[in-house]
């Protein structure tokens, strides 16, 4: 087990490095000159433009720029924002907790609603609960997040006045954005869990368990759900990654602070150091998530654990 984790960690480092290189190349090749974006196009003289380019090291060849960047990064220096000279690392560390809180709460909402409704709808197939669950699933998947967000604001802030419409002050302001993202996630999980539960329910071993006289409840939660969860966990792992990406939209709609908004602004402004820094951090999160998903397999499914041991 330890060995597996270690080897996974090694590949993870490669993945993070690869992601950095890839993003650096994409940003480098994208049309648009960051220097021109930084200066006011109507008043900057060609001389000012050139000076700034030299100052930022953008006149150097690509490989030197990349080597400089990567070297600094290994030393923990992620550079400064090209737009407002803010150091990148403190900026990310400052905004990361807000995004993590949003992702965490929306994951909890998505998983709770998703698994509960998914299981219930499979058990009560074609009943009212099933109908509701499928509706939630469809709604979550098909509604664009910004639309859901605005609907929630209209209902819960403007009409009912229960939650603030925007901002990042305290837990109350986290509810609506997390619910917005959580609904999307729940949509996917409901469908996934429902389908795999239905598949499992029809398998021979369930029939065998019934024949043995086990209670329906024990069969469903003790055996069927456990088997159905394996594909669901994979989806949930990927989904948390999606939720992290979804924060870009949700943080903008709800005017929250966070990594999502930082990267959206940085991409618009072609602010290379900031984009790089954020990508580096998010790729770490993705890798860690994947690792956790893999480890959780072995807990849910003994076959995986045995395979790992041998």
């Amino acid at each position, binding site marked *: 087990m330890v060995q597996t984790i270690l080897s996974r960690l090694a590949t993870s480092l490669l993945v993070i490095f690869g992601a950095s290189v890839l993003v650096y190349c994409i940003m480098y090749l994208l049309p648009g000159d960051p220097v021109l974006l930084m200066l006011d196009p109507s008043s900057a003289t060609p001389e000012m433009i050139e000076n700034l380019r030299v100052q930022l090291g953008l006149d150097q060849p690509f490989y030197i720029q990349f080597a400089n960047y990567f070297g600094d990064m290994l030393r923990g220096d992620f550079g400064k924002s090209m737009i407002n000279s803010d150091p990148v690392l403190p900026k990310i560390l400052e905004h990361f907790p807000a995004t993590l809180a949003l992702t965490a709460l929306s994951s909890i909402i998505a998983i709770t609603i998703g698994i509960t409704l998914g299981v219930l709808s499979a058990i009560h197939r074609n009943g009212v609960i099933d109908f509701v669950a499928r509706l939630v699933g469809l709604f979550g998947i098909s509604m664009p997040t910004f639309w859901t967000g605005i609907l929630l604001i209209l209902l819960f802030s403007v009409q009912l006045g229960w939650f603030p419409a925007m901002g990042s002050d305290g*837990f109350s302001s986290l509810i609506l954005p997390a619910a917005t993202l959580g609904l999307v996630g729940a949509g996917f999980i409901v469908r996934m869990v429902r389908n795999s539960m239905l598949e499992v329910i029809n398998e021979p071993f369930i029939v065998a368990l019934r024949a043995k006289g086990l209670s329906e409840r024990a069969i469903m939660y003790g055996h069927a759900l456990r088997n159905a969860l394996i594909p669901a966990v994979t989806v949930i792992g990927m989904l948390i990654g999606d939720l992290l990406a979804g924060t870009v939209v949700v943080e903008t709609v709800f005017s929250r602070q966070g990594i999502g908004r930082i990267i959206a602004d940085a991409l618009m402004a072609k602010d290379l150091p900031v984009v790089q820094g954020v990508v580096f951090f998010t790729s770490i999160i993705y890798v860690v998530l994947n690792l956790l998903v893999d480890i959780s397999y072995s807990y849910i499914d003994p076959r995986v654990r045995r395979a790992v041991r041998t």
Partner: protein
Amino acid sequence: MNRSISWMKYMALAAVLVMVLSGCGAAGGSTNGAAQASGGDQAGSAEGGNLTFALATSPDSLDPHRSGLAVAVRAIRTIYDNLVVQLPDGSIKPWLATEWSVSEDGKSYTFKLREGVKFHDGTPFNAEAVKYNLDRVIDPATKAANSLALIRPYSSSEVIDEYTIKVNLESPSQAFLGNLSQALLGIVSPTAAQKYGDQLGKNPVGTGPYTFVKWDENADIVVAKNKDYNWGPETVENKAAPHVDTITFKIVPEEATRIGSVQSGQVLAAETVPPQNIAALKNDPNQQLLQANTVGLPYTLFFNLRKAPWDDVKVRQAVQSAVDVESIVKTLYLGNYERAWSALSPGILGYDASLEGSINPDINKANQLLDEQGWVKGADGIRAKDGQKLTLRYVDGSPNREKRNDIAAIIQQQLKQVGIAVEVEITKDIATVIYQNWDYDLYGNSQVNSDPNALYAFYHTSAEGQRPTLSGLSDPKIDELLEQGAVESDADKRVEIYNQIQQYLIEQAVILPIYVFPYTVAASKKVEGIKFDSLGYPLFNDVRIQP
């Protein structure tokens, strides 16, 4: 079996936890919101309180000299003062400068400065400070943005005595004094500017009615009342310290959220109300709608005159006749925006009101003009000449700010009727597409400005090595008029000069003026005294929050 049961317990526990937490959150949230909304609650008096004001975008910097965004001015105005102030009628009045004289040749200004003014950090305001500021703007190390264009043709300044300064220009400029009133030439504390360098924008220090408290990126900017303030300009009633204790500028880019947060009482005021919400807000008994037209260049579409066939005035006039600006503005802004008729917006010196109603849509005329120029309709309905299709590349640089992308879409439909194919490209990378590669036929822009000299940067033949103008216009007659307009000291003659320029631009169809942008603020009825300066920017000196 055992494990799965305990696992279910954890799930249930988590679910309960979430519910409990969200319950707490709801309670906390509503009290919190209520506290914020009634920030001005102070037993019958309208002193104190916190004005929460939602901004549509995030300011780039609170260093006036380095900022390039109009949205930053809302906050910059509260922190900094200027040497002079411009009244809505265009006249210039004292502010930090109490009086001034202009030399015979119009190239130097001598300002007497107000005594006893201190920056928020205690630095005394004097001639040295003013010299430091003006020199700072033209210093390349400052990386000044829009302020650099405003300060031209500044060359140097001399400290005469503690409270007297002589400012020298390279050439006379009628726009200079007005420009000194603009927030981007606000006076910053020299001590702070030296201390913070390029971080002054995050640690702003001025002499203004409010002092900077904090700026949480993408969340809010907080300023607090400057108790020592007593040198307010003529544009406000309250020359002394503001009535409210603090202003919190919340950054809320999503318009539905912004309006929602005013309606829910989470903020007391929000800027830039989308046209579709204006009617509803006007009918809301708890809300008021404040509106001020911005001054300068209205939103205008510029033809790129250096690209064929747009160098042909007849083809441009055909487009001018085919585009129905009236219906565009009515359709998109529901009667809340004024249609623009000229290269300048109403309210600015020299605005030519005679152009109003001068150009009306005329499809027959458009077709006739294009026929005359040899553009023949093909089977697909698109005109062609010498095997070349008549296509117009329409570039827009904003993700539908003020529905500008929709303008493009409507024009595309309208021009299709006369056989012109319009390719619309929306790109954020204006610097490359427009200013570097010149890869457009039609591109829209607007500018807030207090002086008609703003036209110079858009229509004067660009000098060697300088960035080309948006229109690419190069006409010696217009160049001469623009040069005269910049220096003419007789106001009537100046008006005459700018009238001629505006008429030429419409007759020659160099541009298609579209709309005058109104700066709109939705505010709770509890808020009183939000005023607007001559450019349409909000002023918060007189604000009171009624309990």
